[in-house]
């Protein structure tokens, strides 16, 4: 069971309290109706599924209830960092981001 840091509670808490909510930084257009089929396809269906660093959303569903973003290495299953929803994708990553 992983420990996940909730950036709102500022605590490392067991995975049981959290739920994954899919890839992060998938931006919903403010003018969705005007989007081309291609752009909408990218928004709705296309996901990275990387081997290595993934930016993903989690919800502290059995805690504060907040959605936040996390950077995780899908190979080692290690969380490199978490940050609040709405914050920019971090430019540099701490620790063993290979």
């Amino acid at each position, binding site marked *: *069971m*992983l*420990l996940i840091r909730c950036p709102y509670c500022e605590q490392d808490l*067991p995975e049981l309290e959290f739920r994954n*909510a899919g890839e992060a930084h998938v931006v*919903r257009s403010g*003018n*969705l*109706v005007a*989007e081309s*089929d291609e752009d*909408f396809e990218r928004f*709705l269906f296309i996901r990275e599924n990387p081997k290595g660093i993934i930016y993903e*959303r989690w*919800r502290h*569903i059995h805690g504060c*209830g*907040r*959605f936040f973003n996390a950077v995780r290495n899908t190979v*080692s*299953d290690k969380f490199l960092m978490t940050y609040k*929803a*709405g914050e920019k994708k971090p430019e540099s990553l701490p620790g063993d981001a290979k």
Partner: protein
Amino acid sequence: MPQSYRLQGKGRLTPAKGLRFSFDGKHYSGLQGDTLASALLANGVHLVGRSFKYHRPRGFLSAGAEEPNALVTVQRDAARKTPNVRATVQELYDGLDAHSQNRWPSLSFDVGAVNDLAGSMFSAGFYYKTFMWPKSAWKNVYEPKIRAAAGLGVSPDQPDPDHYSARFAHCEVLVIGGGAAGIAAARAAAESGLRVILADEQAELGGALRFESGASIDGMDGWSWAQEAARSLAGMPNVRVLTRTTAFGYYAQNFVGLVERVSDHLASPGGALPRERLWQVRAKRVVLATGAIERHLVFAENDRPGIMLASAARAYLNHNGVAVGRNVGIYTAGDSGYAAAIDLKKAGAGVAAIVDLRDNPTGALVDEARSLGIEINHGRAVVRTAGKLRVSSMTIRPKNGGAERTIAVDALLMSAGWTPSVHLFSQSRGRLAFDAESRRFLPSDYAQDCVAVGACNGTETLEATVAEASKAGEQAAKAAGGKTAKAVAPKVDASESWAGGMVGSGPGAGPDDTVKAFVDFQNDVTAKDIRLAVREGMRSIEHVKRFTTNGMATDQGKTSNMHGLAIAADALGKEIPQVGLTTFRPPYTPVTFGAIIGHARGPLFDPTRRTAIHPWAEANGAVFEDVGQWKRAWYFPRQGEDMHAAVNRECETVRKAAGLFDASTLGKIEVVGPDAAKFMELMYTNPWEKLEAGRCRYGIMLREDGFIYDDGVVGRLAADRFHVTTTTGGAARVMNMMEDYLQTEFPHLNVWLTSISEQWAVIAVQGPKSREIIEPLVEGIDMSDGAMPHMSVREGKICGVPTRLFRMSFTGDRGFEVNVPADYGQAVWEALWAEGRKHGACAYGTEAMHVLRAEKGYIIVGQDTDGTVTPSDAGLDWAIGKKKTDFVGIRGLTRPDLVAKGRKQLVGLKTKDPNVVLEEGAQIVADPRQPVPMTMIGHVTSSYWSQNCGRSIALALVAGGQGRMGETLYVPMPDRTIEVEVTGMVFFDEAGGRLHG
């Protein structure tokens, strides 16, 4: 019966309480502190089982958790039968009743042993190659027969009456293994005052000190030192010592699973104690002090009862005071065999001879053995043994060939050397490296905050072990934030070494293909099986493992993996590290399902949700159905009524008079704030801004892909307050989706969301008399049609308690839903019921609710829709705000496939024969005469007998359905084909007048 192999004045158990026990119905005696194995050995019993495949007689190989052979069934009563218990681990208690396994008719005469004679047929891969045709016979004939003939114990056939407990624990330092290394590490870490947990699988701490007669620490013999240390550790408030506790799994971020056997060693556990306790420990640092396991030697017929590991015989002798034989042979590849021979000789047991694979062994132990007059045959190997149910002789010869000689023995001890127990380290995802000199895999790169010390780290002497462990304990505490003085390592006065040995097959294992030289005792894998696997093309050790099943039994190859690997490497002409190591996976030793499940069984397996009105429904004879976790009243049968009759009566009564229905399970969400209407506009397809306070609207929620996600009636209580209802099953996911959008996509909106599903009990009162029933109980609400038309909501009081009173209908008749605080739910229900009785109302359940809504063509999301249905498909185009520029799903709705012609659309179906009720899920075709497989154009989603319509009714998703009105379609069933007519979805009161009047 006398314990004739118990030596007077030897071991640590005497004077101890005598215990009685039985094995295969025969009664024996033993001592408190024995294991089942040591007690049987005290009585001269070596034969305890039959092997998995060949049914060969087997005895004890070990004195610990690595035991592959001595698996027995321990029975307390009819329900408490535990199969596959390792007799070497099971502690003896008075009255213990154990039985051997995998034999018929008896252990000493086993018909299945014919497999052994036909052994040349049963080579590796035999089953794969032989039982291939016909394909279906594998499932029905071969597999059941093979499983009956091969195998281990029989599963108990009654529910487990014991209970199992579970705990979470946190500590700064977790020490796994309570031998000299673990004790030293725990003592050093505990000095810091931080929380330390020390777990060991044995009943007492001590590890290898149990059998090592040559260890002395701090002026005491090794075992006494360990017991003294255990007492002082247990007395420290910051230390928890868990004995009989196996660390079975090492998971992410130092999360370690331990299972504590709480009462398996007690004669009468009583009901209060759990049988086992699962500990889920999160540690800042972990110290692995898991020791090493002795390997057997691989030679022909190395599996007869009486042939065991040298260290096991020492444990039985030095701890239990039991000699495993009176004329014991020793076959060794290192010093460990000598230590056993010396202990036995000194204790007065006869030692026949030592056979040493080494050419010129030297050293103190060799000298001592020689000075005790023990015969030493160096440069020689045991090539064969004899003895039917117990070893009777060993045949030796020079290891490179030469004259054979047979020596009579009644037990034969083996030591090929020691394998570090790196299982947990490997589970932690640490990387192992092969040490070519010692021919061992040792911890190399750490993946987690842990450290391996002592034998599992390849450290060879007791001095080095306790020094390394003390330092590691101190550093672990420091790293975890503790302050500690420099730990003083225990002073080792005398020590044994476990260096040396060999891996792979000995000279007595071939290379010919005729002998059975066992590598893996539990799965009956021999050296020739592994060579055969290589010859047949297996190159990866993972393939060799799966082809031969080496290391795949319940002991997970604790004694066999290294031998198997070395034999495969030899056959491949490669070095061991090039062949690689199989993966270590949890659990380290078998864990019961009970321990993993803990309290989560029976009613505690999944929460059961009951509404506030549940007790009334129960008292009034309701039959319940499960809807998710909810118990919902399904129907209320009266005397003599079956379900059909009850539902028909309920449906008729609602339309003629009225009915009361418990709708409390509906999901309810309060959407509040200055931007509440804006938020609703974005979450639902409908327009909300202009909905007046006090009015309701049926809302549809889509996913971004344009498909229906949920629906429900929404009441606007005030400009900034909506009372949203959802489907029963959708409550949690709708709330989650709303929160998701509010927090991440629309964070600029000033809105709060609150789940109020459980705060309000909901009583639906439906039918022409509904207003008359409610009105007398209500204060402050004008319920007249003019003041409170269909789809409106009012706040006021009912029976003196606050209510949100909705006028809405899921039946098509005049109807209301009375929301009251859940605590008052049953009281208000009873008051309404009393009023209802005056008007001939009934209570109705979910089945009648389903029929009534289907009569009106009201859909149920999840039944009539399946995640690929758009509002247009469901005939709900009208619910989409045409002028809206954004809502969740707006863009998805315009995807090419969602606007294409020929989509499946919801329609009504009427069977040509009104008495025939279709099956839900039945497929629909246009032409019943077409060849199979037919082109299916849709399926039935809802189907009922409608008493009010006097006929069957159904809803269905049919390709292009809305353009097929009046068309005849067909529903092919196994016994007949049913003709149906496509109709509109409303079967009752098509004009809808009853809603208002």
